[in-house]
């Protein structure tokens, strides 16, 4: 009996490992909301020593339709420290019959391009398969050998929206306890999984994970999707060894291995910097002068070679060529500040409009894609982005705001939250007047003052070409057809971080003739038409990442011989998402004052509140489109 039991176990094994590629074997629940089904997603990592790691990837993806193509790409990046040992792909039809084999020599080998760097030394091996039929299945396998154990591949049990997973498997082996990886499980409560562990191995498997459907205003995918973060405490990266247990230690490593000695400057440069701040005692004022000097004299150029992906080019080099990437320019600014006796810290951040925090309990090199500078002053940090030639000192906008970042101090790293711009901080004040002419056109003067993140969206206008500015206003006021900008002027108060646009414009046929009367849409210059999409059943919670506050006041003048029809009543809406108020008052027989406020609050809301949120914004859109009748009747 014992013999039989072993035999049947073996049989079962061999059966379960032979893959069935036909689509008929996909469980029905995995087809829901799915453009592609990951039949198998398998990663086997062998950490062989501190500077030698290999891993094998096997992905079998059944693509159900065209949108699913993106889940079955065959592309791998590599560089001098990361070699592709093996790579191949096989395509199967819906019944599991082999259609095509793609060998290593069929892959194209090109220089990687990120769209903004002048040069990168990364390369890309890829094959773009042209599907001849749907569904079809792509099996893609490759093997990597690398000395960089400082970046261990992370694991997403589900890689994105619109894709379900039949089986997912992650295994990592290691030779000794000191190379045992630390694995952080994130959002695993969402799935069933098995974890196995032995003294030299850890593995996770999971099966039958249904697809997530994409919905507007969803929180960032990684905040709710099941995944693993993996790191070694002792690792090797681009030729450098490290041992890191916390952020303090990682900061030390960055300081000692990547930054140390890079902030030297030529004597002449040091004296130039000192000349610039001559007569200024206050450190913050000095910092402002130095930052302006960097902004006026350098520009952002990205070149990434080897460790240069992490290490800044030296301050001396930046000083010579007057350009650099975020690391180089930040390090250069830090060096100049150092020369005038102002302390500042190199700071690593995950940039982008979506706020992503560094994870407090998980120090690794994979977090962060940008570098800014922190200047401590009177128990507070001032943040500056040295890649921007135009941002005001201390203002970072929505690119790096309100998130946990790694500040590298001489005592090591620490996680700190950057400046945040709250709902009312992101304000827009519009003061306008428009005059309706006999030919139903309008002439208008509009003054717009913006602050906070709204400032961030606008102040670049100052640097735009006339064509672009004209286009911008036509787009910004796309509710006003036939708009012509006559002239404009801008005032950028960098000290107060406030931007004022003054625009003179006209618009043909703003008022429309209806029968004997005329129709006027009161709100001409801040018409909110956005209503979030309707879902039969909302599945995910939703977030408003940044709130804002708008306040408008518009004086409306009608031609002689025209009279106002009935005026609408004032509206006030108060909700948990924000508030709205709009109303119109008659000043005299020919003038109205229209006033409006809209406050939208940042927040995370449960899916149950979505309909209410939608209804709030729908009401706003409706009210913003409020119309009145004008009459043109001869008066006695």
């Amino acid at each position, binding site marked *: 009996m014992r013999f039989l039991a072993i035999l049947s176990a073996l049989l079962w094994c061999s059966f379960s490992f032979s893959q069935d590629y036909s689509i008929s074997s996909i469980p029905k629940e995995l087809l829901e909301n799915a453009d592609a089904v990951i039949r198998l997603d398998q990663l086997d990592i062998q950490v062989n020593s501190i500077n030698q790691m290999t891993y094998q990837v096997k992905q079998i993806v059944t693509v159900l*339709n*065209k*949108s699913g193509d993106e889940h079955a790409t065959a592309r791998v990046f590599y560089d001098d420290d990361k070699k592709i040992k093996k790579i191949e792909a096989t395509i199967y039809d819906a019944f599991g019959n082999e259609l*095509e084999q793609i060998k290593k020599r069929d892959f*194209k080998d*090109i*220089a990687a*391009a990120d769209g903004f760097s*002048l*040069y990168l030394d990364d390369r890309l091996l890829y094959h773009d398969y*042209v*599907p*001849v*039929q749907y569904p079809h299945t792509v099996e893609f396998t490759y093997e990597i050998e690398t000395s960089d154990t400082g970046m261990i591949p992370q694991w997403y049990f589900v890689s994105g929206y619109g894709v379900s997973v039949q089986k997912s498997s992650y295994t990592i082996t290691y030779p000794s306890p000191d190379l045992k990886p630390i694995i952080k499980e994130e959002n695993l409560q969402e799935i069933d999984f098995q974890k196995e562990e032995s003294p030299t191995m850890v593995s996770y498997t999971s099966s039958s994970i249904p697809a997530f459907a994409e919905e507007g205003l969803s929180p960032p995918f990684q905040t709710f999707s099941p995944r693993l973060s993996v790191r070694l405490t002792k690792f090797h990266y681009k030729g450098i060894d490290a041992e890191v247990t916390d952020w303090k230690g990682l900061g030390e490593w960055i300081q000692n291995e990547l930054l140390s000695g890079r902030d030297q400057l030529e004597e002449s440069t040091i004296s130039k910097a000192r000349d610039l701040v001559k007569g200024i005692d206050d450190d913050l004022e000095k910092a402002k002068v130095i930052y302006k000097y960097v902004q006026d*004299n350098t*520009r952002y*150029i990205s*070149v990434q070679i080897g460790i240069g992906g992490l290490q800044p080019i030296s301050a001396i080099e930046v000083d*010579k*060529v*007057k*350009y650099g990437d975020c690391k180089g320019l930040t390090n250069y600014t830090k060096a100049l500040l150092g020369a005038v006796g102002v302390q500042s810290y190199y700071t690593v951040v995950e940039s982008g409009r979506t706020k992503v925090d560094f994870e407090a309990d998980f120090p690794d090199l994979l977090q962060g894609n940008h570098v800014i500078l922190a200047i401590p002053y009177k128990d507070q940090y001032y943040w500056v982005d040295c890649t921007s*030639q135009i941002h005001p000192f201390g203002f970072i906008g929505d690119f790096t705001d309100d998130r946990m970042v790694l500040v590298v101090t001489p005592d090591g790293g620490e996680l700190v939250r950057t400046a945040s711009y709250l709902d009312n901080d992101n304000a827009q004040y519009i003061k306008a007047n428009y005059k309706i002419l006999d030919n139903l056109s309008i002439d208008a003067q509009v003054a717009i003052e913006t602050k906070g993140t709204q400032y961030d969206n606008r102040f670049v206008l100052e*640097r*735009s*070409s*006339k*064509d672009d500015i*004209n*286009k911008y206003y*036509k*787009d910004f006021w*796309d*509710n006003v*057809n*036939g708009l012509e900008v006559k002239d404009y002027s801008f005032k950028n108060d960098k000290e107060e971080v406030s931007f004022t646009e003054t625009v003179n414009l006209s618009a*043909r*046929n703003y008022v*429309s*003739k*209806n*029968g*004997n*009367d005329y*129709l006027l849409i009161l709100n001409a210059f801040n018409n909110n038409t956005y*209503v979030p*999409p*309707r879902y039969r059943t909302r599945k995910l919670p939703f977030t408003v990442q940044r709130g804002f506050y708008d306040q408008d006041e518009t004086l409306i003048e009608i031609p002689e011989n025209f009279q106002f*029809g*009935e005026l*609408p009543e004032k509206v006030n809406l108060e909700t948990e998402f924000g508030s709205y108020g709009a109303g119109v008052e008659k000043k005299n027989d020919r003038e109205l004052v229209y006033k409006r406020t809209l406050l939208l609050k940042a927040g995370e809301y449960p899916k149950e509140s979505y309909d209410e949120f939608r209804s709030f914004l*729908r*009401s706003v*859109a*409706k009210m913003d489109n409020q*119309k009145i*009748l004008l009459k043109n009747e001869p008066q006695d």
Partner: protein
Amino acid sequence: MKSIRRIFVLSVLFHGTLLMGQKKVEFGLLSASEQAFTTYAKDTTAHAVYLYEKGENYFEVRGNYVWLIKKYHAKKKILDKQGLDEADITIPYYRSDKSKEIVNDIRALTHNGVVKHSLRKENVYDTDVSERWSVKKFTFPDVQEGSILEYSYEIQSPFFFNLTGWKFQEAIPKVYTEYNAKIPGNYKYNRALIGEIALDVNEATIKKSCFSIPRATESADCEVLKYVMKDVPAFKEGEEYMLSPSNYRSSLEFELSELLRFDGTKERYTKSWKDVDKEFKTDNDIGRQLKKVNFFERNIPVDLISGPGDPLERAKRIYQFVKDHYVWNGKYGIFLDNRVKQAFDEHKGNVAEINITLINLLNAAGIDTDMMVLSTRDNGLPKRSHPVMSDFNYLIAKTEIDGTTYLLDATEKQLPFGMLPYRCLNYHGRVMDLDEESYWYDIVPVEPNMKTVRIEMSLDPENSLVSGNFQEITTGYEAFFKRERLASLSEDEYLDKIEDSSNGDIFIKSYEVDSLQSDDRKLVENFSFEMEGLGQNKNLFFNTFLIHFFKSNPFTSETRNYPVDFGYLRSYMYYANIKIPNGYKVKELPKPINLGLPENSGVMRFNCSESQGQVMVQFSLQLRSTQYTSAGYAYVKEFFENAVTTQNNSYLVLEKE
């Protein structure tokens, strides 16, 4: 190596002035006027300007080989911070399997007043961008507002076909741009001047015995060319609805037509259509591929070709077969190695492979079909003066059945028989008739291309709701685009897009394609919908356009330097019946509108009327020309502005009784 047997002497028309003694511009030195240059008065919106640009192309013997040498020298002034991007330089160079171009002597100098910074070698990067092209990249050091950036390099090329001409006009203006070429008489190039700007210098002279190779007894005479343009305005790339900018941008185009090598061997590229025709008939790769009738006959269902039906039915059957059989890989590839047999086996191929299959099959079925080559809209119009084969990038089938001509392309699954993809609507192509002579043939887009919306709806103020049904009928290209969208999107995504194109917050409750009324050039779709938020006020304002054709005016520029080209004639119709709710009466109707474009090239009508408790809305917009000149741009712009205003501002006003 043999000596030259014959020297070609070109007969040359002399234009302009004779060669004058020209002061040589030395690298690193700025002229007084360049040093003094501060603003560019001719275009105050420019962020950077070429002060000087010069190219020299000639042939030279280096290491026993004849090379094409292309020298380049330029000075750009950075006028403001937005011009800083002009400091990033990319120099593309080409390679084949056997040899490649070499970029020599890259020099770059930033002039900041009298201070100069030179580029260091290690800051020049080399990257391959595709199988055939690599680039050298660098950026200038210490660039400031006001810097003058000077650079020069040389490309040493084994590819004589890479003497392609000169771009006089680019995205930033040029104060002075000069092109020189010295071409031995035995290398022949066709040439064409594109654009409307006149040359300031246009010189062509003969230089005797200017080129020889070692051990040759004789030397060749050269044609010496010099072309200059001064104060060339920036070329602004446009908006929607245009043909390729290359049709309008000022440039000089060269194409290699004949090469008589110094060893006496001769290679003809293109010369006359007769030569081209002959090539296609005899040794041309494409021509050969067209004769694979036997292969296809063996590999297709028997009754596809010899089955029943009149020629048109059989042609349609074959067309459908090729469309179903192939997936287009997105490439055109008409002059690359086409492997029709392999493509057929793999079920995928480029434009040439797919359409050559189609041509072969039609001919096999006894339906006389020729190949037509053309240039896509974004590739530019092919020159009609002489054959420039590199102008063509696309290949289709032309056949005549019962006196009707059909142009066919089997690359798009949703494309009906007799229609070409939008990219092909580029006015004319050349039919390569292998039996007779080739000839030009006009590409006439199909008609009609209509989008019609019919709506029945009722208003329910009590529940603040609008509900009803609408039908969308599209024909021609409008139907084709819809079918493409339907094929590439899920139904939900498709309906989301329809909802987005509505004037309000509509929600589509049901959707179906009316297959009985639809055919291959017509699509009829039925929707039912509801829209919340009508309101319950004493006065109800309701936009009579539930669906709009244009969200905003596609024409935003004040002026336009090249024609507007719509590709095909189009028209839009909107009919709505709006039921007036009980307890309300019509207070105001939008006023009728009747507008036209000059020369009756477009018309728009809008009218509302009330009868028996319903408001009827009728709107039509027709374009009766596919192309409008830049002079007529203002009218087109205004016409569309009025169309958008009409859609956005035509309110029905109801009043509570």
